[in-house]
């Protein structure tokens, strides 16, 4: 740097010297001194620019210029506080919302697991491909492993210091507890060691507890379970608790804050060898062809992910040799919540839609700021023209203007991010704590981290270009001479282009706003429908209880015994008018489906089904419109089925459905004995999909819903239902809910999404009307002279107003139409929340555009009215 300083210090002197010599030369050639000096200056060129260019040689020029630009920009923005504040607020709003939603998605999908040295922990998933015939039993997730596969990977790799496997989301009932179902984990015995989460009380599993099937009836409780169910009593260690009818000794309590490695917290952990006791019915441990265990491995230090891959593939190839035609491919990622490919396949498109919707609001905010900058650019025309004529290059000026934009968007971005990080943490807490009861609590950490910071920064920089580039280019392209003279009318030789810019800006703003408002409108309609829908059956006045007796240790015979006694007692209760049993209660999110074939038709027809007792139809008020109901003698395997009206119409158009037959996927033949009326029993808003009813028999007693229609209050019925169950089996865990409550599970997602999109829509509308207002007042200001001339030539005020209104509404109308078309193209993604209204609901598509155009005309009218009060004399004189 010293060399640089020495060189530059003398630059001025050198140049002066140079010019003096040249002047002397010229004088020697016979010029007059004055002439000589001019000639030498002319020959030398622009001194200031030479100096600047020389400085640039030595400086890290862009940095110095940047600092200079920042200083200049700060001064400039400070001089225009109202504009600066408006722009910063608009950007803060847009960027803040985006950063906020990103921090939520980050918490869901990008954040590492909350365990020590989480970056070392890899999640391994497999995809199996079969040549020819091959099948695989799947429990929970097809990417999971079988017990034997897990042990192969665990024992034959050189890349992991430990590999753990676990079955997530094991449902259990705690005897004597005051909670319904709790979710736990069946884990390999090295689970706590691999995750490096040693229990805060007691101990983790010992290796011997996993030695063979059925060993190790021990349990580790989660911290919150320990606090809520056992009053944080340290003496619980060593005591037995009963989960799903099996006694386990409590050996430890997990550290506070550790809730497992899945998004839904685990309440307890038991050795995986206890799986059969915990979930009777299937022996998964012994089934080598069953995907049911998630696998996490902790890398040894210094091992790369490629080495891990290479090493594990050796094991995979060896396992493949045992199954002809099977090829395993592995996907290995740093472990996160939602790290399996199956979950990501769902999460990525959903997050993209959400991020896109939020980005649209940011886009509108950008358009607003751009509007402000364009308006200011016309004020700054003179300054810029002056700098251009003093020899500043256009690139340099553009860079300087962009620096100002960057300052604006950084200020807005920082403000917005701070607010977002603060408010979204609280907002998420609020939403997760207000989810309907049967929603599992989700643990999302939305606190900002490096990802969020980088995202916010990137967003701010992109934003500054989005709103800054066009005004910067536009304002440095002016006609120097006329701008300097202050002739603003002539300076807008690019006036047509300028107006087009403004119009395009407003148009796109309206288009984006229209898309968001339409989406919000559609979702609100869907929500309204979900709140008020008539599902086609009598949903009120029905209590329902879901009994998984097999999980509570019953075999089929005892279950049937229990059910018979239970139903008997329920029938005898005062106020109970009807009792029925069904495999799936209506709208309970329990679905069963099978593929059927019809005689003479080659294709497989997917049909949803339910097993029900004869009283089911009268209980929920679905009449049998043709044929007959089941009789109580018909059991699970009886050949008669009842189909719904639309199913009958679809399968046997123009024929009598009664007596027709169809074959299920296990080749059983069923005859249609009756036709039931359509109702939305499986999906809300969908009554015409294929659906049929089988009779219910003793086989179904181990797992079925019991429905009770009552004429008195729900509280009494719920209480006496519980009493009835406990009088047969005092240890039974039973939960009674209203059938109506199932509607809540359908409404909750649409309520959240509608709330979200409604908020976005309102914000978009606000920003958009500010944008339209700004554009119109700006263009009225710009065309004061034109309006003055019109008035002077005898135009009346009304026609001037009409002219201005038309000029301003045209881009609004065009943009709005484009928005409607765009939304119509993409609104299909919302159809699952429309409950049968359809993604092109005419009410929304008529009402929302009218509403938006109404708001836009109001925003136009206010500034346009000013045009009427232009005084032609003043307008023409002022220039």
């Amino acid at each position, binding site marked *: 740097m010293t*060399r640089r300083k020495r*060189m530059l210090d*003398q*630059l001025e002197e*050198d*140049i002066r*010297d*140079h010019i003096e*010599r*040249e002047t002397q*030369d010229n004088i020697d050639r016979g010029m007059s001194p004055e002439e000589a000096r001019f000639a030498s200056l*002319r*020959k*030398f*060129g*622009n*001194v200031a*620019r*030479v100096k600047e*260019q*020389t400085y*640039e*040689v*030595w400086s890290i020029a862009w940095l110095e210029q940047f600092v200079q630009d920042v200083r200049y920009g700060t001064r400039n923005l400070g001089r225009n506080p109202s504009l600066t504040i408006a722009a910063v607020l608009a950007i803060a709003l847009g960027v803040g919302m985006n950063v906020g939603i990103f921090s939520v998605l980050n918490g869901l999908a990008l954040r590492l697991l909350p365990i020590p040295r989480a970056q070392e922990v890899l999640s391994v998933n497999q995809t199996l491909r079969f040549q020819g015939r091959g099948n695989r039993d799947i429990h929970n997730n097809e990417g999971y492993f079988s017990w034997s596969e897990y042990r192969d990977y665990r024992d034959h790799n050189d890349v992991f210091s430990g590999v753990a496997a676990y079955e997530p989301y094991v449902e259990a009932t705690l005897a004597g507890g005051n909670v319904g179902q709790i979710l736990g984990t069946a884990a390999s015995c090295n689970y706590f060691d691999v995750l490096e989460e040693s229990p805060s009380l007691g101990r983790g599993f010992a290796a011997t507890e996993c030695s063979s099937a059925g060993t190790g009836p021990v349990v580790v409780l989660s911290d919150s379970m320990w606090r809520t169910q056992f009053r944080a009593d340290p003496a619980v260690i060593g005591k037995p608790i009963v989960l799903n009818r099996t006694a386990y000794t409590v050996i430890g309590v997990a550290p506070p804050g550790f809730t497992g490695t899945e998004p839904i917290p685990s309440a307890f952990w038991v050795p995986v060898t206890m799986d059969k006791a915990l979930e009777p019915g299937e022996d998964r441990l012994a089934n080598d062809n069953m995907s049911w265990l998630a696998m996490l491995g902790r890398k040894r230090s210094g091992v790369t992910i490629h080495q891990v891959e290479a090493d594990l593939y050796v094991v995979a190839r060896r396992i493949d040799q045992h199954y002809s035609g099977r090829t395993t491919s592995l996907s290995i990622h740093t472990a996160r919540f939602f790290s399996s490919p199956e979950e990501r396949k769902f999460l990525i498109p959903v997050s993209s839609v959400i991020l896109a919707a939020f980005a649209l609001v940011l886009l509108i905010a950008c358009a607003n700021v751009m509007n402000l900058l364009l308006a200011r650019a016309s004020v700054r025309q003179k300054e810029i023209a002056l700098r251009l004529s003093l*020899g500043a290059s256009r690139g340099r000026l553009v860079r300087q203007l962009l620096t100002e934009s960057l300052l604006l968007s950084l200020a807005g971005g920082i403000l917005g991010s701070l607010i977002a990080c603060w408010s979204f943490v609280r907002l998420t807490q609020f939403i997760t704590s207000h989810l309907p009861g049967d929603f599992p609590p989700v643990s999302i950490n939305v606190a900002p981290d490096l990802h969020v910071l980088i995202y916010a920064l990137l967003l701010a920089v992109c934003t500054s270009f989005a709103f800054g580039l066009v005004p910067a280019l536009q304002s440095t392209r002016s006609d120097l001479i006329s701008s300097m003279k202050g002739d603003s009318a002539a300076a807008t030789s690019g006036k047509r282009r300028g107006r087009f810019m403004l119009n395009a800006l407003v148009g796109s703003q309206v288009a984006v706003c229209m898309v968001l408002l339409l989406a919000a409108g559609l979702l609100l309609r869907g929500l309204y429908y979900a709140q008020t829908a008539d599902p086609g059956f009598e949903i009120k006045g029905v209590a329902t209880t879901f009994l998984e007796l097999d999980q509570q240790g019953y075999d089929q015979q005892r279950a049937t015994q229990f059910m018979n006694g239970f139903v008997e007692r329920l029938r005898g209760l005062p106020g109970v008018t009807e009792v029925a049993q069904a495999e799936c209660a209506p709208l309970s999110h329990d679905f069963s489906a099978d593929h059927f074939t019809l005689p003479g038709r080659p294709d497989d027809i997917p049909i949803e089904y339910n097993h029900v007792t004869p009283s089911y139809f009268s209980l929920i008020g679905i009449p049998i419109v043709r044929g007959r109901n089941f009789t109580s003698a018909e059991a699970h395997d009886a050949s008669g089925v009842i189909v719904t009206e639309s199913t009958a119409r679809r399968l046997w158009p123009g024929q009598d459905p009664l007596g027709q037959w169809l074959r299920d996927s296990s080749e059983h033949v069923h005859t249609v004995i009756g036709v039931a009326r359509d109702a939305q029993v499986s999906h809300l808003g969908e009554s015409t999909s294929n659906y049929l009813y089988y009779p219910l028999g003793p086989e179904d007693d181990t797992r079925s819903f019991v429905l009770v229609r009552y004429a008195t209050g729900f509280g009494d019925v719920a209480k006496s239902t519980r009493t009835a169950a406990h009088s047969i089996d005092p240890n039974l865990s039973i939960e009674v809910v209203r059938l109506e409550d199932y509607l809540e599970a359908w409404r909750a997602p649409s309520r959240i999404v509608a709330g979200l999109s409604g908020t976005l829509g309102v914000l978009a509308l606000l920003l958009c009307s500010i944008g339209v207002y700004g554009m119109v007042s700006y263009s009225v200001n710009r065309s004061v002279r034109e309006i003055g001339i019109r008035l002077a030539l005898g135009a009346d005020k009304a026609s001037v107003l009409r002219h201005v209104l038309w000029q301003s509404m045209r881009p609004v109308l065009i943009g709005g139409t484009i928005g409607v078309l765009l939304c119509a193209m993409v609104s299909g993604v919302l159809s699952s929340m429309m409950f049968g209204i359809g993604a092109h609901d005419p009410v929304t598509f008529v009402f929302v555009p009218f509403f938006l155009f109404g708001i836009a005309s109001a925003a136009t009218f206010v500034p346009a009215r000013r045009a009427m009060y232009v005084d032609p004399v003043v307008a023409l004189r002022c220039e």
Partner: protein
Amino acid sequence: MSTNEEQGRIELLQGTLDLLILRTLQLGPLHGHAIAKAIEFRSDEVLQVEQGSLYPALHRLIKRKWISAEEGISENNRHAKFYALTTQGRRQLRVETNKWEKLAAAIAQILRPAGQEEP
């Protein structure tokens, strides 16, 4: 913003100024004004150098260590800065000259046939 009003003068190609300065300094150390004069003189005043542009170029060359700057006394007994080629600069001059000759030859090659068609 050039003042290229005199006929028959050619503006310098971008980047050739460096080469000309190096070549001029091959004869010995010179001060800024003398370099400008030398270039003009040696090209029979065909090449037009905006004299100011000499200075960024000189500083660029100093930064690359191809030339050095020394304080000295000029012919009329005034203090002046003298620029001289360094060893590295000499080597660079050979490289650049070589490159330029190749370029000139190649362009001449391309232009020749068109020139021959005209009588």
